[in-house]
């Protein structure tokens, strides 16, 4: 058991997951991921390279992944915007990688405090074309470890970029983490470029010029996303069964909502918490089910309601979905959220 900063847990977990490469450009509040990578990767024979930009970084990730490496990068809002071209290329070329987005407040330069304004550009694809990426939303240091390891597995299993969508608060936290005792030894991939005789016929590319070729590729990608939706939905429920009001939040907000749940349960209110762990695939089916049971929802976000659209879509127009948000780096207090939730329970 370690007591470790969540942003550092990501790096150690990545290395234990077999990651050997990190390419990135510094940005607060994601720099700690870069700094920990710079500290540890060279010690285990890996590469840390500070790229000239996020654009270059994601393309180095593309190259490393094409060459068969487990590879990672990290950034925050403005840098994620710049990476989108590369993410689209990777999704199209079906290259695995792990991207950590430690969200900060926007739009524009905004500020470096926590927000959840990257949901749209990460979950719904900020780059061009018909692609999706798997998005995991850890809410504690242990999950920053576990979901990082899972991210590398899913990335390779489905040959896709996988995001770890987190925020400035989660990243700063120190909590106990139990790391695995062994390092994953990834199997050789039959599609990657190993610069040897067995792989020299391989081609990593996203261009499809033959008639219908690109449509076929698009259909293949959509089938893959359907498969991911079938297999990989993850969420956590706390006292949802008998709840009248189900609160929904991810990342740091879910930690606050856990406190709210405890306080209101003690007061005798039937309130519960649903926390999406995967943002794509989203727990739409479960939400639909809960809406069918007549539950009311309260969606809490540090954004203008970017996840709310997915929640509304899932529960249908007959369900009542309340919404509470703060933006611009302001995080509500537990007391504030408790009052909001209590208001919908009277």
């Amino acid at each position, binding site marked *: 058991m370690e007591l470790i900063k969540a942003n550092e847990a990501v790096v150690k977990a990545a290395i234990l997951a077999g990651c050997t490469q990190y390419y990135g450009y510094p940005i607060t509040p994601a720099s700690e991921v870069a700094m920990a990578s710079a500290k540890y990767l060279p010690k285990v024979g890996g590469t840390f390279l500070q790229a000239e930009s996020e654009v270059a970084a994601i393309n*180095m990730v*593309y190259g490393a992944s094409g060459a068969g490496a487990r590879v990672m990068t990290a950034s925050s809002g403005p840098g994620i915007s710049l990476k989108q071209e590369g993410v689209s290329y990777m999704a199209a070329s079906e290259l695995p990688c792990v991207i950590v987005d430690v969200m900060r407040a926007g739009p524009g330069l905004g500020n470096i405090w926590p927000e959840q304004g990257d949901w749209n550009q990460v979950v719904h694809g900020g780059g061009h074309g018909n692609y999706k990426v798997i998005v995991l939303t850890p809410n504690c240091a242990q999950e920053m470890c576990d979901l990082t390891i899972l991210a590398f597995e899913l990335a390779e299993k489905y040959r896709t970029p996988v995001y770890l969508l987190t925020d400035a608060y989660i990243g700063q936290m120190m909590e106990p983490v139990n790391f695995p005792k062994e390092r994953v030894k990834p199997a050789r991939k039959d599609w990657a470029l190993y610069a040897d005789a067995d792989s020299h016929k391989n081609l990593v590319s996203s261009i499809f010029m033959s008639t219908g070729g690109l449509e076929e590729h698009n259909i293949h990608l959509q089938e893959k996303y359907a498969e991911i939706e079938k297999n990989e939905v993850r969420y956590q429920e706390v006292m949802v069964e008998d709840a009248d009001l189900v609160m929904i939040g991810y990342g740091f907000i879910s930690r606050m909502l856990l406190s709210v749940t405890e306080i209101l349960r003690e007061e005798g209110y039937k309130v519960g918490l649903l926390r999406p762990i995967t943002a794509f695939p989203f727990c739409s089916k479960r939400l639909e089910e809960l809406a069918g049971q007549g539950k009311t929802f309260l969606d809490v976000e540090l954004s203008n309601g970017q996840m709310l659209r997915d929640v509304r879509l899932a529960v249908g127009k007959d369900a009542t979905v309340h919404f509470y948000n703060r933006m611009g780096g302001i995080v509500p207090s537990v007391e504030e959220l408790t009052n909001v939730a209590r208001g919908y329970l009277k």
Partner: protein
Amino acid sequence: MAKDILQKPGAFFDQFDRKGGAQKTTHYCPGCGHGNAHKLIAEAIDDMGLQDRAVFVSPVGCSVFAYYYFDMGNIQAAHGRAPAVGTGVKRTRPNSIVISYQGDGDLASIGSAEILHAANRGEQMAVFFINNAIYGMTGGQMAATSLIGQKTTTSPYGRTVENEGYPMQMAEIMATLRAPVFVQRCHLADSKGIMDTRKAVRKAIKNQAEGKGFSFVEILSPCPTGWKMSTHDACEYIKTNMLPIFPAKVFKDESETREPFFREIPTLTDEQVIKALELGMLGEPQPRDEKFLKNFTTMKYKFAGFGGQGVLTAGVILAATAMQENLQVSWIPSYGPEMRGGTANCSVVLSKDPIGSPLVVKPDVLAVMNDPSLDTFENDLKPGGLLIVNSSIIARKTKRTDIDTLYIPLTDIASKMGLTAAANMVLLGAYLEYTKLLPLEHLKLIAPRGLKRKELADKNVEAVEAGAKWVRENITAKKTKAPAPVA
């Protein structure tokens, strides 16, 4: 055209199946320079026996389909990003021979940052820069390398210095950098030009195979279609119009003198990896008994002071000590708008249950090391809570009467020991002696962890003991119930 003198090399596919059908001709226009450049590269790879190790990075431009032809590892890059993609490949596979092949739009415009930095890092790759002074693929638009007066579809009246500046001389720019080992400009306008290019191509690839570093070969290349000229005129245009602006010459060549460098990738055992990651520093938890854990009520702390007083570390050490009892713990530093009053502070929560918000607003225990901290947080402390005041620095008393307060000269005690910075450990020692919440022994075990210098580690333990001693000597009876007594 001199292209007839070239045989089809083995590193070229016999027929271009990737192009569709069983085609034997390339997709390039008649008289285009790309085909010749391709052949020179394939031939060099072939002759040097590097085909299996070669990875060709194709750009976006007319040569986007280079993978139709090159029978080697192929990776297609986004517009301008080939040197970054090549970097990722090379760092992952140091044994690879990376060929980065780019046009002028790709390299000199959209990818100018990527090429400059790959060159400056001395990436072990060979870059072939096809300068045809125009965007061939997209319909003959102006390039950064287009000549002054050159008419293109986006400079229909001719390029002017005032509007678009001067043609970008990439080889010259590359040669100003220290890292590149070899920089040459050549051309494909006649047989001599092609033979010079052939030599340059071979040198660049050989350099890479020998670990000499980054080589850059700029190749002036005809684009009869984009220039709206016959093949013959296009070659003449290179000689009469381009060469004066883009002289063909060796700008830099340290191939003979450069020390070879090969990146080694060591293999580590799991144990070596765990050690490198500095895991296992806290050791195994040593819980006292189940009753303790079962009866534990959640404790929330705020440690505040100015930077250098070690308040953040105090929180970490307390959390780590509590982990010895298998408690859930969280630590979070002040961050964002919640940073107030010029103080550093952190929140710590200890609980037997999963911890919700790690942010502590109303602490059970507040420890303040300086005046602003007391002023800022005094009123947040829960009624009945414990306030610890560093009386070495804070002269005033609290106005609160509904709390338990300890005034301890933390800084003085630490200074007397010769390590003022250990005031935070004095604080923890005093706190645990006073409340008996967690065993002092555990704190003494944790306090020196992670400190490399032995005397520093010893001092920390000494500080913990000094804090505890102060409490034993100065506090006779507790004024109020201490929080969460051990069951």
